[in-house]
């Protein structure tokens, strides 16, 4: 075993964070397993030919194979203890998720856009687990994770910086009019139409404010605070709008949680010692 491999034991914080993100991304993709099967049956029974996509990116068979391969690659990445196998699985996941982002049957599903970013982070981290001292690597991994989570929330915010969202009209039409979800059913049962429309306005403004604040500021918070805030915000989005959004958000929740694995700041001497000890005691 090379000295480089000795410094990152399989239970080190970066390795644990890496595994957590793989499991969360796997859970995100598995969250839509039922709907995916139903959709795949539709794609198989009703193919759609259009000039925009290359023929192979319209194929239901390609979609099925890529989706299944992604699940397998994520499971391998989460479980294996072999560095090379882990890196191969991470690269495979990134490649497969890239295909899911551009396939006719899945391009519009933000599940795969968020999974793409967690896969990119994972691919980078998989290549560093056996190279860098755990504590320093974990700080960089957490910094990158909160930059990515902030950027994705900013992406949601920017597209809503419009009069139609600020007035609540868009979310009123999408959610408040007839969406069968506990929160909106409760509001419809409790409020008259005018009040419901007002609530839609403030609900929409709340969404814009939270996404904007997190998008612009989450990356600058201390790692643990960023992790807690990020996990709370991402979870609340699904709980108060649509449980199926967990397929989009679970991978990000895992990515945000990476910040929890950063050790609290310590005096310079202690920290130097910590990395040295880790390098001498890989177990």
């Amino acid at each position: 075993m090379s000295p480089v491999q000795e410094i990152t034991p399989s239970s080190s914080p970066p390795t644990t964070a890496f595994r957590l993100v793989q499991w969360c991304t796997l859970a995100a993709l598995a969250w839509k397993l039922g709907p995916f099967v139903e959709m795949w049956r539709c794609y198989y029974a009703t193919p759609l030919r259009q000039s925009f996509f290359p023929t192979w990116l319209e194929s239901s068979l390609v979609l099925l194979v890529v989706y299944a391969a992604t699940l397998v690659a994520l499971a391998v990445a989460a479980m294996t203890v072999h560095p090379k196998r882990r890196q191969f699985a991470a690269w495979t996941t990134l490649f497969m998720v890239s295909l899911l982002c551009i396939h006719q049957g899945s391009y519009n599903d933000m599940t795969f856009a968020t999974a793409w970013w967690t896969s990119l982070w994972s691919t980078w981290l998989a290549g560093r687990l056996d190279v860098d001292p755990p504590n320093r690597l974990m700080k960089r991994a957490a910094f990158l994770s909160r930059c990515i989570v902030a950027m994705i929330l900013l992406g949601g915010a920017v597209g809503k910086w419009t009069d139609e969202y600020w007035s609540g009209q868009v979310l009123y039409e999408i959610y408040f009019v007839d969406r069968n979800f506990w929160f909106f059913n409760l509001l419809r049962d409790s409020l008259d139409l005018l009040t419901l429309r007002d609530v839609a306005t403030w609900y929409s403004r709340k969404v814009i404010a939270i996404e904007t604040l997190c998008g612009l500021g989450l990356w600058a918070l201390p790692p643990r605070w960023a992790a807690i805030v990020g996990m709370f915000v991402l979870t609340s989005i699904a709980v108060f709008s649509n449980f199926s959004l967990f397929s989009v958000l679970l991978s990000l929740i895992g990515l945000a949680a990476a910040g929890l694995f950063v050790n609290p700041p310590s005096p310079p001497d202690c920290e130097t010692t910590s990395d040295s000890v880790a390098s001498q005691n890989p177990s």
Partner: protein
Amino acid sequence: MSESGDLQPTRTDLGFVAVLLLVVIVVVWLVSMPICQFVQRATLERMHLQTRPFVAWVIQQPIPAMYNFYNRFEIRPSPWGKEGDDSTEKGTVNHFPVRMFTFGDNRAVFLSEPKPRQLDVWSSYRGEELHTRWVATPSAQGGFDLTNEVVEAVK
């Protein structure tokens, strides 16, 4: 060692720099959207599958766009009814409005019978609007052929 010192990548960690740079590029693209017509048009065209060449659309796909823009649709059976007909399905959709024909859960509803269907989609963002029309025609090979035209380009 300070926090900022720990974030300094080691000399060989080009991956960290590359991913961070990519994030920065996407952030610059996103924050310029409200003020830059080029970004607005590119994103509207991306949402309506109008970007050419295809690789330019592919490159944009990782850019987060959840619940972006005001996207409306109308679906009419053949013969195309007039706007507001009882047979017209209309609504608002979160993003990528052409999904009403392409995505599985919608395709199963709107293209369940081998009859022609017409889909009109509008997306607007801060004064820019794109309107495209899509026609799904039953194919002899099974399924549908989907053609489209830009009815009204971004202003």
